[in-house]
């Protein structure tokens, strides 16, 4: 595959007795958004750090643009931009000074970075904040500034470690607009997230649990792997519903969602009328009962269960 930009093979990292990342294999292609999804402690940040070559793996290999990262970490740094989970810019420097600093470190010609910075600041509504200290920006603007600094040198690979944590929904949407734009330009992106709705926006996903990859596929492909089906029952007060449905035969798991419950069942056609009947018999009000396509969260829980790794 000629357009593979990032390739990890058998990637492992241990901290003492703890195996933070356990033999990961994956590839990321040009213009692909690759998501790392998993709960805290799944090894997302450690994987990101190894890809950014700020941390050395104990085992395995990484190639970026065909360059062996372990052998030539400094050469790959020219091609990679990394946004750490914790805000990494200088809060006592202004927006412009931060951008200029990173442009200088990557030796971007002045006219190139100036026009790129102008365009990106305009696109993200930040032109009026150019002289403001980065420490005085809102959370969303800080992340956008981080992205602008990361993009000032046109990287081939963009690594984003939970970039939208603590960012308001509007800024998150704007943030993703920028990422889609970059995808169009052929940038390979690896993004880690704890937001499962965000995971659905990725082209491909790796579900991580305790450092190991549970599944890796497109969001649709992952959904197809899920055995059984998902039934959504809406109600003003979902709590009694949850109590009833979880005891019924054929129901594997019931998740409380905002406006009702999601029941994971073995066979939707058979169980849907049974559930309807049980709710009616108990006299609990339910506004809607229907088969739905599972969310990533449903998927994650179900797939972990399938692998017998949940505890």
């Amino acid at each position, binding site marked *: 595959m000629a357009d593979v930009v990032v390739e990890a093979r058998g990637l492992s990292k241990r901290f003492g007795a703890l195996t933070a990342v356990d033999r990961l294999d994956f590839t990321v292609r040009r213009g692909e958004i690759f998501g790392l999804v998993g709960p805290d402690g799944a090894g997302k940040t450690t994987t990101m750090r190894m890809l950014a070559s*700020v*941390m050395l793996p104990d085992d395995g290999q990484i190639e970026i643009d065909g360059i062996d990262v372990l052998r030539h970490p400094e050469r790959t*740094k020219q091609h990679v931009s990394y946004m750490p989970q914790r805000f990494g810019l*200088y809060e*006592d420097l202004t927006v412009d*000074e931060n951008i200029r600093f990173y442009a*200088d*470190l990557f*030796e971007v010609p002045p006219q190139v970075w100036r026009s790129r910075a102008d365009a990106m600041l305009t696109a993200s509504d930040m032109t009026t904040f150019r002289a403001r200290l980065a420490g005085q920006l809102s959370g969303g603007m800080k992340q956008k500034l981080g992205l602008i600094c990361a993009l000032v040198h046109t990287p081939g690979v963009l690594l984003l470690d939970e970039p939208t944590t603590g960012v308001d929904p509007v800024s998150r949407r704007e943030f993703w607009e920028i990422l889609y734009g970059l995808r169009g330009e052929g940038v390979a992106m690896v993004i880690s997230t704890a937001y499962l709705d965000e995971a659905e926006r990725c082209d491909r996903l790796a579900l991580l649990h305790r450092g190991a990859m549970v599944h890796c596929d497109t969001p649709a492909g992952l959904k197809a792997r899920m055995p059984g089906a998902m039934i959504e029952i809406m109600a003003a007060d979902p709590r009694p519903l949850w109590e009833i449905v979880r005891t019924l035969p054929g129901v594997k798991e019931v998740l409380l969602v905002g406006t009702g419950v999601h029941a994971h069942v073995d066979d939707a056609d058979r169980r849907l009328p049974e559930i309807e009947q049980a709710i009616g018999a108990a006299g609990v009000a339910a506004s809607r009962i229907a088969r739905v396509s599972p969310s990533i969260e449903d998927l994650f829980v179900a797939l972990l269960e399938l692998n017998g790794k949940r505890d």
Partner: protein
Amino acid sequence: MRLRRIKAIAVKEGLQIVRDPRSLMIALLLPLMQMFMFGYGVSLDVQRIPLCVLDNEASQQSRDLIGRFAASRYFSLVRALGGQRDIAPRLDDGTCRIVLVIPSDFSRSLNDTGAGRLQALLDGTDSNTANIAANYAKAVVSAFSISLQLETVQRKGGVPQSLTPVDVEARVWFNEELESRNFIVPGIVALVMAIVGAQLTSLTIAREWERGTMELLISTPVQPMELMIGKLLPYFCVGLADAAICLALAVFWFDVPFRGTVATLFFTTSLFLLVVLSIGYIVSVSIRSQVGASQIALLLTMLPTTLLSGFAFPIDQMPALVQGVTFLVSARYYILILKAVFLKGSGLTALALPILCLALYALVLVVLAARAFRKTLD
């Protein structure tokens, strides 16, 4: 190595220094305060040693002798004691450091046999002061006995002659008044520069770790050497400003004679600055917290500079092994140079050897500092 990246880091660091007026004030006020603290606190001159006397005779001659002690600038007569049992308490509570005991037969034995005896009791807890006090006391007593002998000769109608046929007239060069301040203050300049210099850079890397900016920084193509040069440059400027403050205080406030050239002074000071800034940088690289780094840097600069540099304790009186260790203390060379430039007016040629040592030291440390930094989180 790219100039553009070095400049970017130096500018960034400079902006951060300027934007943090509190720490900039500390960087410039600390040396000022330390110069005054050490300048007035450290003095090896012993003057006005508190003295008590127990005069068991109370004769004309014993009072003459006491008068001579009281008139000397080395002693200050605190009180006359009533009896033998008062001696120990006065030495214990620190009322005096020396007690002069004049026996009841002092003048009789002096006039009969020509030899009088005195007793001086000294507080030996500070042996240095006790030693000096004993010597001063001997000097006062011998001056007393010479004049006594002259009197006797005159009384007997003889012609007074010099009683010491050979007289040594010692002339002290370079520090004519033998003022300890003149050789202490250049040492203090070195001490303050060592402390402040290492403090300046001890925070620079640790701060990036603490604030979380390091992770991003090491993901860029910046090279350790570029990072080090870029980070040391602005602190070098602050350090030179500190040096100017210290040296100006030494000359204009503490009145230390300055006989050398400003150029020699700043050239050698730059070398020393490189050494201490590199020490601070290495500490900062190794210890990722600001508080820890600052304390280790203080320890690494202050202790060797006070104890092993010849600042206060003469190196040639140390055990051979310790003398060997002093060669590893950079301040040793800098203090030697400073004293020579200040008091002797020595130039580069006369100081070639210590300057070479200091330059070599700076080179080694700069290389170590550049290599100490690792671009990984592990």
